[in-house]
């Protein structure tokens, strides 16, 4: 077990190197030059040169790459070019709000989609099943932007059930008052694709022999679905959900912007707009590491759910 974890961590090194290389290639090499923006409205070539020197972008590429590698190794990405805020501070302060929304969302969406998937799979082939699937497909074809705009307008403004936007210092208030509408929107958006996916996972399981065995034992259909099938179907579901987590940190940017949630996604877009490379690079590397760690976690959770899995 520990040997396995160590080996998996060891295997992350080449991937991380690849990420570093790709990120470096994309941002340092071809990513543009923010010196002109930082220089202000009126700037001389000399000032530009000065700024480039201050930022270190006038160095040869291999030196810049080496600096980047060192930054990754020491987990110290320096400070934002435009605000001078230490990148570590950006990460620590923006992560909380992001997670305040994402964790409840992930838990709820997984539970809801899983429950619905089992229900729909139970009546597979029926009119209900087809209708739900078609509604899901239609729901899928609508952009998240439309959901956000409409929900914010209707539920927050017209009906006044939620604040239009906002964020506070209190975790409870954030979760209950400010976070609920964003969570609901994310839920509504993700239910359709998740339900479709989870349904196929469940259908995959329903055709297995052990279901027939359970039936032959006289186990009720409900119990078959909720005990026998669910446990098996949860294996691919775990992978799917775990793989989603790191991407969501950034993917939730639209919600964060519309509801003024000071999260990571919003920070990334801001950094991209500002060409704030230290922040972009740091977040990319952190998310990449998170992706790898979550993949490992998913595999470890596999082990918990599926005794067949041998961690070697």
């Amino acid at each position, binding site marked *: 077990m520990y040997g396995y974890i160590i080996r998996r961590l060891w295997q992350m090194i080449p991937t991380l190197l690849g990420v570093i290389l790709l990120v470096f290639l994309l941002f340092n090499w071809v990513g543009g030059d923010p010196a002109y*923006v930082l220089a202000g409205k009126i*700037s001389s070539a000399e000032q530009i040169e*000065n700024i480039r020197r*201050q930022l270190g972008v006038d160095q040869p590429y291999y030196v810049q790459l080496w600096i980047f590698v060192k930054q990754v190794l020491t987990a110290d990405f320096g400070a934002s070019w435009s*605000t001078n805020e230490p990148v570590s501070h950006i990460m620590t302060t923006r992560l909380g709000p992001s997670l305040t929304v994402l964790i409840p969302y992930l838990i709820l969406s997984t539970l809801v989609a899983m429950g619905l998937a089992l229900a729909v799979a139970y009546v597979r082939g029926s009119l209900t099943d087809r209708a739900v699937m078609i509604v899901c497909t239609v729901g899928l074809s609508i952009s998240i932007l439309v959901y956000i705009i409409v929900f914010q307008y209707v539920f927050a403004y017209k009906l006044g059930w939620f604040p239009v936007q906002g964020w506070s210092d209190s975790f409870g208030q954030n979760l209950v008052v400010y976070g609920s509408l964003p969570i609901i929107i994310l839920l509504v958006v993700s239910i359709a694709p998740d339900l479709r996916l989870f349904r196929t996972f469940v259908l995959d399981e329903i055709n297995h022999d052990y279901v027939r065995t359970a039936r032959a034992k006289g186990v009720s259909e409900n119990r078959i679905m909720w005990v026998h099938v669910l446990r098996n179907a949860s294996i691919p579901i775990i992978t799917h959900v775990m793989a989603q987590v790191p991407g969501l940190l950034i993917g939730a940017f639209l919600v964060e912007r519309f509801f003024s949630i*000071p999260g990571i996604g*919003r920070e990334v877009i801001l950094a991209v707009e500002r060409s704030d490379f230290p922040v972009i690079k740091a977040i990319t590397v952190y998310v990449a590491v998170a992706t790898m760690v979550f993949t490992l976690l998913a595999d470890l959770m596999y082990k918990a759910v599926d005794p067949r899995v041998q961690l070697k």
Partner: protein
Amino acid sequence: MSLRASRRKLPGSPRSSRRNASRVMRSALCAATLLALAVCVEVVAADMNKVVRHVFPAAEEGFDPAAAHDLYSGTVEQAIFETLLTYDYLARPSKLVPLAAQSLPEVSDGGRSYTFRVRPGIYFSPDAAFKGKKRELVAEDYAFSLKRLVDPKIRSPWAWLLEGKIIGLDELAAAAKKSGKFDYDARLPGLEVVDRYTLRIRLKQPDYDLSYVLAHEPTSAVAREVVETYADVGGRVMANPVGTGPYRLANWIRSSKIFLEANPEYRGFTWNFKAGSDPEDARIVAEMKGKMMPQVGRVEISIMEEDQSRLLAFQNGELDLMNLEGPLAPMVMNGASLSGEMRKKGVKLSRFVDPELSYHYWNMTDPVVGGLSKEKIALRRAMAMAYDVDEEIRIVRNGQAIEAQYPIPPGVVGNDPAYRSSVKHDATSANALLDRFGYKKGPDGWRTLPDGKPLVLRYASRPDSLGRQQDEMWKKALDSISIRMEVQKDKFTELLKLEKQCRLQMRTASWIADYPDGDNFMQLLYSKNIFQSNNACATIPEYDKLYEQSIRIPAGPERDRLYHEMARIIETYAPWRLGISRYRNMLIQPRVLGYKKHPILHSEWQYIDVDTTGKGG
């Protein structure tokens, strides 16, 4: 320069200022116990229960006047720090008045020497950097703060405000670049601290805009102790603003929330501004006159990037003040006034044309569109004539803009509202002009260059929805004169880089006044500013000659005459096609009293009051 302070001498001795902290707390007591009114007026200022909730549409960078360069950081800086000069709250066009200075500067030596006297008895808000001592604002602080703008380590985006102006300053910066260490202790002939409160600035050549520069928030006073305590590796103090202004930073959640509270050390002032010609002014004066300022104890600023969020939050009463950006205008505006629904709610509107100009420029060094030969001029003029500014205002700007007739927008000294441009939308003439100069149509219907080579225009724009609309506007314009167009899409940072290197062909740029003087706009085509602010990379000898004349004389009819001719040169040689100036529409909740958006000042919180009786809703 006959501007005088319109503000009464501020009340309160240094002693009473010192007790300002207790004053804030006493305000409630005042109201509750109904102490003698006079006492209250004398001491009561900021009421911590009075909160103004403001919104920014984009994130702030930080609050170092020398380092931050976005509008929103500047807005907060203006509330925390003080410049030597500022603008009168109500006077239009904008009028300079002293702020930390006792009076407007004495200008001597034909505009080469400026002497300021800093008002004694102004104190920085308490901070650990002062080690428990009260810290008075002195002339040296301004000398220090101005030097910071050119410190290479800080890489201030505002260096250009002072570059090439103050005797000895550029040399000091150059030395710092070499040695790697900026000598703040150096005595400069151009920045002479005559005594504790007197600062004399000597210029290399006459400059009538220096007063404006010293009203611009990058030149605010910061304390050297604070910088030395908090500076990061870049010598910047983004997160610990300590100033002498009416507010101080109470809490800051970066790029999300900024909380300001009244500065207990602030000396305060009595509201006494004169109404201008605007009929609204009378109401404002009635609401505010005689009040001890600042009234508002707390300012809460939220950052909301999305238009819809801002507007809904405002309509929901979650915001007190909000700048209405173009695309949203039709939702709450009916032409120039608020919609009935908003008026019914009692929402007020502060509206005027921003001191801003958008212009379409051609790169004058570009082989296709640049140059001063007749056929190139004809090409540019044809394109200029093909562009329909009226349609842009109607469709793209939703009517919230005016056509720019003159390179200097309204609200800026030098603007001539009567001036009419000779460039009109006229595709027929544009076509005729191109025909005349041999831009023949090829077999595919597109025009070629006179030498028969293909003619393709490259229009650069940002990847946002406004950029897309500009693309469409120009596409239509160039289609109407059968010139083929391509769009060059790039991130703003990249466009800016190419622009500064004169590598774009054509783009729509805009310029917002840093200070309300025409020179800020007219310098944009001066050939010495190529690679800096001369985006068109234009070298037009006639223009240069006139410009050089214009900077040697103060604002006035003589300069206006030169500006007229320069405007006509812009039309004639067509390095630019003038675009528009936008309206600024500030929405104000009924509970906010005395608010009027100032065209140059960014923040007005210190001049307004909030009705806490609840009748405003």
